């Protein structure tokens, strides 16, 4: 899988992870892959939930990376 963009939102807490992710996806070319790096525990849940609800697909399962999570989303 080739990652096209990386959105690094470590240190940000709600609601910004969801807002930034959805805004970035909206501006991306369809089919491109966005990687999101986040370390706010609430976003481990609400980012994937909201991404899927808004019609995007997860390219693969979220990956736990130490105390961070990596999400892979198809725009």
């Amino acid at each position, binding site marked *: 899988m080739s*990652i*096209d*963009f*990386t*959105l*690094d*939102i*470590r*240190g*940000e*807490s*709600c*609601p*910004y992870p*969801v*807002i*930034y992710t*959805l805004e*970035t*996806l*909206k501006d991306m070319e*369809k089919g491109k892959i966005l*990687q999101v*790096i986040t*370390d*706010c*525990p*609430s976003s*481990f*849940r*609400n980012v994937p*939930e*909201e991404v899927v*609800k*808004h*019609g*995007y*697909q997860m390219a693969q399962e979220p990956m736990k*990376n*130490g*105390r*961070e999570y*990596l999400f892979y989303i198809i*725009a």
Partner: protein
Amino acid sequence: MKVINKIFNHYWSPYIAIGIAGILSALYFGITKTVWAVTGEFTRLGGNILQLFGVDISDWAYFQLIHMQGTTFSRTDGWIVWGMFIGALMMVLFSNSFKIRIPKQKRRLIQGLIGGIIAGFGARLALGCNLAAFFTGVPQFSLHSWIFMVATGIGTFIGTKIVQLKWWKGKPVLLKGNTAEILKKKHPIQPYIGGLVAILYIGIIVYLFSTGKTMLGVAAIFGAAFGILIERGQICFTSAFRDLWISGRATMTKAILLGMAISSVATLIVIIAYGLEPVTKIAAPSTFIGGLLFGLGIVLASGCETGMMYRLMEGQVHYLMVFIGNVFGATLLSYAWDHLGVYNYLVKNGKPINLITVMGPASALIITLILLALCFIIAVYWQKNYRFEVGFKKGDHNKHVH
């Protein structure tokens, strides 16, 4: 091992966490005759700080109203607060998830402080935060909590309009390609520190009971339990309102409504079984204005007085500013209460109204449950149909809809 892994390394369903919290808060009321609350103690902490600087607060009416006596360690409300901090910290350590998290955009720290002050001021103006004026207020059948809830809804709506403005929101770091560094797995030491904290805390609880301070011991246990539940369930009262307005997420909204329904039934049982008087707060213009400010403040701060607590324990530096803001805002209100005429203008003409007194216990419970169910149905509809940036509009608004 599997069970332990499930408990400590996974977050719990918010429905289960808040449901248990609802039952525990009813039990806590039955034992101590006070409710699970935090901002009252924040105000007293502010009072203690003023005393430290030699300010004479003995004639401040608000501190008399909230029974400003002793130190935080001689008050049940104090042990609820410290218990919550410690309970949340233990869970963070057990799950090896403590990490100092500093926002890249420094404006967040100022925003946290400003939001924290507004939320602290608003919560105390209404005589309680999302707990006493909301999560534990509705189950006490106190009318003020319904006024507060509606006002908080409006306040959070205004808040979401502000936080989505360009200059407030700021810009994230978006880079081309893959910039993630994959970390090597290390043997965790945090769970051991968590174990040490747990042992010390159990020692404190044993000490409180053995020296006859039974109620303080009870508060210390319940505080830790509440802290464990809000951290494991990632219970966020701010999210329950704010996420509806932003992206139509209603997970927390539904969980909290369910928790309040469970707590209402449990609390009524406690009230009847022990013949207790429900805790009823004044319903006045101050309740509405307080709720409005509280709602605005929690969205600006990215967390309320409860959610702030476990996030601070996770190592999120941002919430230290929110905590300072909350205490400062609450103290500001206690000054304004009599010195600036807040009581005379906004509170004096109100009165405590309890649904049980007005319509009897059966009707009070039925009405409460019906209203909560109605809110639940709206939340389900909202989640299904409301989308980020488009709201309820249907049609070809999103090129990515599958």
